[in-house]
C-alpha cells in the first residue's frame, strides 16, 4: 500500500488494516498513549476544506505514533490565492515531509497529488468522491459491536447494512459501498430518488442495491442502519425534498426506531438531531456514534503506520 486514496481494497488488506487498528486501539486504554513507530516522521494535514473532527483525529493519530504533525489549512494559505493544487503539493513535498493527509472539496484531488508529489498520500475526504478512513472506522466499529474482543481476523460476512440519506453527494456512502461488500457485508443504499446516484445497466447504484423506501428496508431488519448527514439547504426545494418530507420518508424517528430492536445505529457525524435521526435514536444503546469517533483515531493510526513506518513500503 503506497497511498490510501480509496476504500476499494482486497478483503485481506482490509482485515489486516482493521487488525492493526485493533492493536492501536489498545493504547487508548493506557496511561502513556504513545508509540514510537513514526518517530522522526513528519506528516502534513493539508486541509482545503474545514473539518475540525477529521483533522483532529488524524492529528491525534499521528502524534500518538510520535510523528510530527503539521496542519496546513488550504483556506488563508497560498492555495486560496490562486496557487495551483500542484504547486501547493510540490511546495509541501519540498519541505521534506514524509506523508500528506489531504482533505479537499474537489473529487480526485488526493489522487492527483499522489501522482505529483511522490510521497504517501492519505485521502481524508475528497469532494463527493471518497472518504476511505471513514469507511474503515465504520467497519471497525461495526466489527467490534458484532464480535467484541474476538474481532481480530474477522470480516463482516453476511452483515446487512443500510445507508440512508443523500447518497448522490456522499463520499461516506461511496467509500462504504466499496469497503463493506469487500468485507462480505450486504449494503443497501436508501434515499429519495433525487438523492440517489444514476443506476448502472444492472440496476445497481455505486455497485450495490438501492431502494427509495426506508420503511421497506426497515421491514428487512438490517443489522446496521447508517444515517448520513443531510444538507437540505443545498438547492433547497429544487432537487431535495423539504425537511418535513425528508423526515416523513427517511428520518430514523422514534417510531421507526421502535421497529428496529436489534439494529445498530451508525452516524458519521456531525448529527442533525431531529432530521436524520431522533435524539432517542442517537443516544440509544444501539447507537455506535461515539465508538465510531474513538475508532477513527485507531484506524488512522493504522493507516499512517501502514503507509509511513517502512521506507520499503507495505508488505501487503
Amino acid at each position: 500500500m503506497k497511498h490510501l486514496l480509496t476504500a476499494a481494497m482486497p478483503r485481506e488488506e482490509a482485515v489486516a488494516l482493521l487488525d492493526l487498528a485493533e492493536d492501536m486501539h489498545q493504547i487508548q486504554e493506557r496511561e502513556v498513549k504513545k508509540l514510537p513507530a513514526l518517530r522522526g516522521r513528519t506528516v502534513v494535514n493539508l486541509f482545503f476544506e474545514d473539518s475540525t473532527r477529521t483533522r483532529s483525529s488524524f492529528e491525534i493519530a499521528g502524534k500518538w505514533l510520535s510523528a510530527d504533525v503539521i496542519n496546513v489549512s488550504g483556506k488563508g494559505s497560498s492555495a486560496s490565492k490562486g496557487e495551483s493544487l500542484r504547486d501547493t503539493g510540490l511546495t509541501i513535498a519540498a519541505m521534506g515531509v514524509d506523508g500528506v493527509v489531504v482533505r479537499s472539496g474537489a473529487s480526485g484531488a488526493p489522487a492527483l497529488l499522489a501522482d505529483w508529489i511522490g510521497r504517501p498520500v492519505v485521502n481524508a475526504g475528497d469532494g463527493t468522491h471518497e472518504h476511505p478512513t471513514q469507511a474503515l472506522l465504520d467497519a471497525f466499529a461495526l466489527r467490534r459491536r458484532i464480535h467484541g474482543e474476538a474481532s481480530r481476523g474477522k470480516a463482516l460476512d453476511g452483515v446487512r447494512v443500510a445507508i440512508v440519506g443523500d447518497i448522490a453527494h456522499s463520499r461516506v456512502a461511496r467509500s462504504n459501498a466499496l469497503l463493506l461488500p469487500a468485507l462480505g457485508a450486504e449494503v443497501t443504499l436508501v434515499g429519495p430518488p433525487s438523492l440517489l446516484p444514476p443506476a448502472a445497466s444492472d440496476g445497481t447504484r455505486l455497485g450495490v442495491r438501492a431502494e427509495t423506501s426506508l420503511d421497506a428496508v426497515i421491514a428487512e431488519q438490517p443489522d446496521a442502519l447508517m444515517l448520513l448527514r443531510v444538507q437540505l439547504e443545498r438547492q433547497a426545494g429544487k432537487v431535495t425534498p423539504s425537511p418535513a418530507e425528508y423526515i416523513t420518508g427517511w428520518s430514523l424517528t422514534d417510531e421507526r426506531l421502535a421497529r428496529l430492536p436489534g439494529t445498530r445505529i451508525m452516524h458519521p457525524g456531525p448529527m442533525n438531531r431531529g432530521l436524520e435521526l431522533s435524539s432517542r435514536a442517537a443516544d440509544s444503546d444501539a447507537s455506535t456514534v461515539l465508538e465510531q469517533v474513538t475508532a477513527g483515531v485507531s484506524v488512522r493510526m493504522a493507516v499512517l503506520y501502514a503507509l509511513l513506518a517502512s521506507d520499503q513500503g507495505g508488505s501487503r
Partner: protein
Amino acid sequence: MTSMQTRATILVGASILGGESRDLAIDGGLLVDPATVDRDRADVLDASGLIALPGLVDLHTHLRQPGGEQAETVATGVRAAAAGGYTCVFAMANTSPVADTPAVVEQVHRLGLDAGLATVRPIGAVTVGLAGERLADLGMLAGSAARVRVFSDDGHCVADAELMRRALEHAASLDAVIAQHAQDPALTRGAVMHESPLAAELGLTGWPSVAEASIVARDAMLAEATGARLHVCHVSTVETVEVVRAAKARGIRITAEVTPHHLLLTEELVRSYDGRFKVNPPLRAERDVRALREALADGTIDIVATDHAPHAPEAKQTAFADAAFGMVGLETALGAVQQSMVETGLLDWAGVARVMSTAPAAIGREPGYDAPLEIGSPAHVVLVDAAARTTIDASHLKGRSANSPFLGVELPGSVRHVWHAGRRTVVDGEVQA
C-alpha cells in the same frame, strides 16, 4: 499560364483521394493541368505512396486571440493548423473582447492574413458578450472586411428560445449559419463529465445526454419555422444523432459536426482525474462513440470539426472540477479520423475529404473547396502518409499549448506536405516559418 514569381510544382504519383494515382501540378496558387507544365522548369516531387487530399477546413477552432495569448495566438494556432493539414480555420468568437464587433473580427482576420499559413475566417458572436441577452449586430459582422458567415456563442448555449429564433431569422437573411453549442444550462449546472454510473463512482457532477438532445430538438424546430440554416456544434450523444437524423428526414436545414476526440475516446479516461480529459461536451460512453461514427459515415453528421481549445498548463494541472474545458486537436485530427473512420472501414479517403474539407467549407461559405484537387481550383493540397504511425508527444504539437488527450498515444497517418493557395506550408512534416 505560368507565374513569374514562383516555379511550378509537379506532384508525381500521389493517390488522389485514396484512389488511382495521377500527377498534380501547382502553379500560381492554382491547380493546373500537369501536361501544360514545362517539367524542366518545374519542381518535381515524388508523391508515390502518399494520399492527396484537399486542404482541410476546420469550422470550429479556438485561436484565443485577442485576450488568451498565453494559450494560443492566431500565429501559433495556424502553425498547429498547418501541421494537421488544415488550410482554413474558422476562429471561434469567445475571445476577450468577444468577437461581437467588426473591430474584433477584422483584427482576427488581419492577423490570419499576416500569419499566412492558413486562411482564418472569424466566427461572430450571436449575442453581445456571449451573455445570451441581446443579439449582436450580425449584419455589421457579415458586412465587415472579415465577411462573417458563421455565428456562434460556442462555450455558451443560446439558451433563450426567443433569442435563438431571432438569431436564426436574422442569419437566414445574411445567408449565414448559426452554430449552436447545444447545452441546456439548467440541466448541466456544475457538470464536468458525462452523467453516468462512472461519474457517480468518481464523485463528479454529470452532464446528462438529454441536455444536448433537447436543445437540438428545439433548435431544429426553430430552424424549420424560420427556414434558416442551423449547425450543431460537437454532437456527442446517441440521442442527439437521432434528433438530427429525424430533423434531416423532415427536410430541416440542419448540419452537424463531431470532434475527433468524441470519435475515438470515452469517459473511461476521466478515471485518472487528469484535466487533459476534461472537455465540453464531455467524453461520453462507448455506445455514443459507436453512434457518432455511424452517423458520420451515413451523413447524419456532416463534418468533423476539431474544437481545438488550447489552455495554458496551469488551467489543466489542477483538480478535475477546477480544470478548464477543452483539448487541442488540430495537429491530431486527421490521425484520429483515420483511426476511427478509415481503419474501421466506415469511411474512405474521399469521404474524409468530404467531411473535413468540402462540407465544412460549404457550411461556412468558404469558396475554393467545392472541386477538390480539380484543375482550376485553388491549390489547397495535403499529402498524407497513411502507412505511418506516430506516438504523439509534445514535439508534434505546433501550437502554443499541449493539452492534448493523445499524448503518449499512437495515431496512424502523417501529414507530409501541405500547400495553402499554392504556398508550401508544410514540407516533409515540418511547418514552414
